[in-house]
């Protein structure tokens, strides 16, 4: 039964047909599939399959990538309240766009993937100052700061990631809080993330979520010697 559901769901997601995907999920729940199974056995594998398909398919497009992530987010958000036990949370991330940058779409997609993978995300919004990133990460005890920058001058500029890194060092937080960046400029220059002082970068939502989960584990390992 689950195989049928997985197949129909994958087809709907591949066609970016949101209504069809939601219908498959409703049908699955009616047939007794649990919300946990929907998320862990249907939604997450589907988004992983989609991302690897998109990465290797010359015909795949950004629009499809966006729509796929949106469907995953929507389904996950609908399922979470139906979980029998509150899911085990991997860790916590604060996320926002760099100072001077108002492009929120990339951040939104990363947030969706993180939620689907049981990471708590706090959205700091757009045009976030370095101080605010750090203050909120400390206040909320987040393991990772995620900074999205879609323009060259916000990705490379002094007010963005570089400043967050400098403040983390000044305050001795480099082991407690890791720094991840994403956005078009980092894709064009895969070494840029290091130049601006980030610990990692990722090129799409699902990989961002994976990279962030790795860093959360690293921080937690460090915390519990």
């Amino acid at each position: 039964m689950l195989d049928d559901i997985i197949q129909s769901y994958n087809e709907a997601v591949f066609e970016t047909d949101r209504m069809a995907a939601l219908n498959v999920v409703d049908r699955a729940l009616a047939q007794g599939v649990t919300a946990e199974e929907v998320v862990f056995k249907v939604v997450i594998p589907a988004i992983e399959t989609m991302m690897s398909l998109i990465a290797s398919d010359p015909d795949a497009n950004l629009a499809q990538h966006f729509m796929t992530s949106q469907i995953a987010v929507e389904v996950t958000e609908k399922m979470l309240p139906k979980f029998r036990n509150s899911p085990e949370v991997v860790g916590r991330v604060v996320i926002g766009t760099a100072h001077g940058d108002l492009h929120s779409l990339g951040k939104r997609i990363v947030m969706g993937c993180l939620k689907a993978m049981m990471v708590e995300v706090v959205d700091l919004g757009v045009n976030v100052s370095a101080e605010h990133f750090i203050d909120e990460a400390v206040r909320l005890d987040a393991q990772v700061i995620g900074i999205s920058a879609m323009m060259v001058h916000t990705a490379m500029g002094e007010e963005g990631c570089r400043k967050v890194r400098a403040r983390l060092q000044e305050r001795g937080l480099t082991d407690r809080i890791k720094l991840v960046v994403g956005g078009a400029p980092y894709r064009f220059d895969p070494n840029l993330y290091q130049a601006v002082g980030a610990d990692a970068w990722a090129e799409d939502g699902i990989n961002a979520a994976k990279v962030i989960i790795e860093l959360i584990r690293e921080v937690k390992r460090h915390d519990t010697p």
Partner: protein
Amino acid sequence: MLTANHSNQMAVLTVHVGASVTCLPFGRGRSVREILDLFGPRVRAACGGIGACGACVVRVLRGEVNPLMPAERLRLDSAAQARGERLACQLRLLGDLAIRIDHPPPPSVWTTIPMEDLCPVSSEQPAAIRYKYGLAVDLGTTHIRLSLWDCGSRQRMATRRGPNPQGVFGADVLSRLDAARIHAAELARLVRDALIDALRDMLARELGKVTPLLADVGRVMIVGNTAMLTLLTGAGYDTLIDPAYWQQPISCQPPDWQAWQQAWGLPNAEIVLPAPVAGFIGSDLVADLIATDLVEGPPGSMLLDLGTNVELALWTGQRVLVTSTPGGPAFEGVGIRHGMPVQIGAIYRVHGIDAAFSCEVIGGVAPQGFCGSGLLDGIARLLENGALKPSGRFTVPPGTEGYRLDPDNPRTAITGHDVDAFQRAKAATAAAMGTLLAVAGLEWSDLQRLCICGSFGHHLDLSLAQSVGLLPPLALSRMELMTNAALSGCEQALLDGAGMARFARLTHLMAPVNLSMRGRYDDDYLDHLRLKPISLSQNQTIK
């Protein structure tokens, strides 16, 4: 089968210059100079096409022509007549015709804007300018459009359209602003030189004199997006990439008017730059409002200026909500595999006949690529016949070379990436429209009037634009297409003594909306990515 659209009214003008040959299919009856000014290699000219200067000599090689006109008998001696020489402004296209230009002028980037793309200006009001001539300028990111006016008689003397020479520093606004950090002076110089070059070109070719007439130019009015205005004046461009200024008025006044007058050789010209509304809302949008009389119409009137940067205005009855969104250059045929501007050889319409397609091509020649409206039509037709799915994927992947509308012509191919770029541009546009309506507390069905200006011009097929979800499915009677609206609004203000007051009054009514501060915009954007009609009830159901 793909067919070039060749009606009986069309004839082909073949032009030889040196070793090069250009074929220009055109409607019969037009003068050869008129056709060449619009699209072709130019002839020399020093009058408004009345046979007065005798400069536009061409040699007829073969074809049917009208008899020699009186002006030609005056200007061409019997030897010249025996060689088959004619004046291009007097020679009319009656059937297929081949000519040679033996003494072409130096090449130029400027062409004339077709009459049918311009709006008439009422002749009622009195002249507003003390001097004889006025110049209206729409300074766009990609193109510059200008018109020269005889202000006393309210006659348009000439028009020009040409590329913004700053394009070498990047196609979009952001890369220009980035370049300005190092090359501000160079960027300003390039565009100022281009404006005066276009003015001199109009004076020289239409009036036959330049220097003495420059003193008769009494006013130059320039509209444009804020970034282009700051790059023209060299002031304020550095504040534009800081979001703190996006909703602030930005001063775009040059530091020293007299230096401009001097540099341009226009001692008596009042140089007028109506102030832009905000960092991301230019004076071109205000000019659009003037041209469309948007605030004279019913509440729920919306204006959409489609281009690389999409600008929108919504009249609520009390105020005008304005915003802009970076749709991307797909609407202008840029960033598309076989994309091209609206010029000879561009597919501008596509029809579907069973499983095949028929393209209408500008000039009726073999297709060389797609302009914005052709791409939209092509995508809509592929969707219609099932070759393309609402997700933007092809039913059968055509590979990186794309899907050929004409199997025999690779220049008619649309690729997956083209579809993707179009989807993102149309989603940004539709989401911006929906967000503005929501800010005003309105639904799609409350739209009473939708004015569509910008890059598609009058070639946009409204029904197809509705079928892919670029425009809402309103009754077609509520939608209006307008070409060169910003230039038209600028022209009206140029000729009106109270022109600046009109700009000020409209600007005062405007409330800028920053889409990135509206949470729903991203959701709407994702929802509008699919190639399907906008659902009229969609606006209320989304949180």
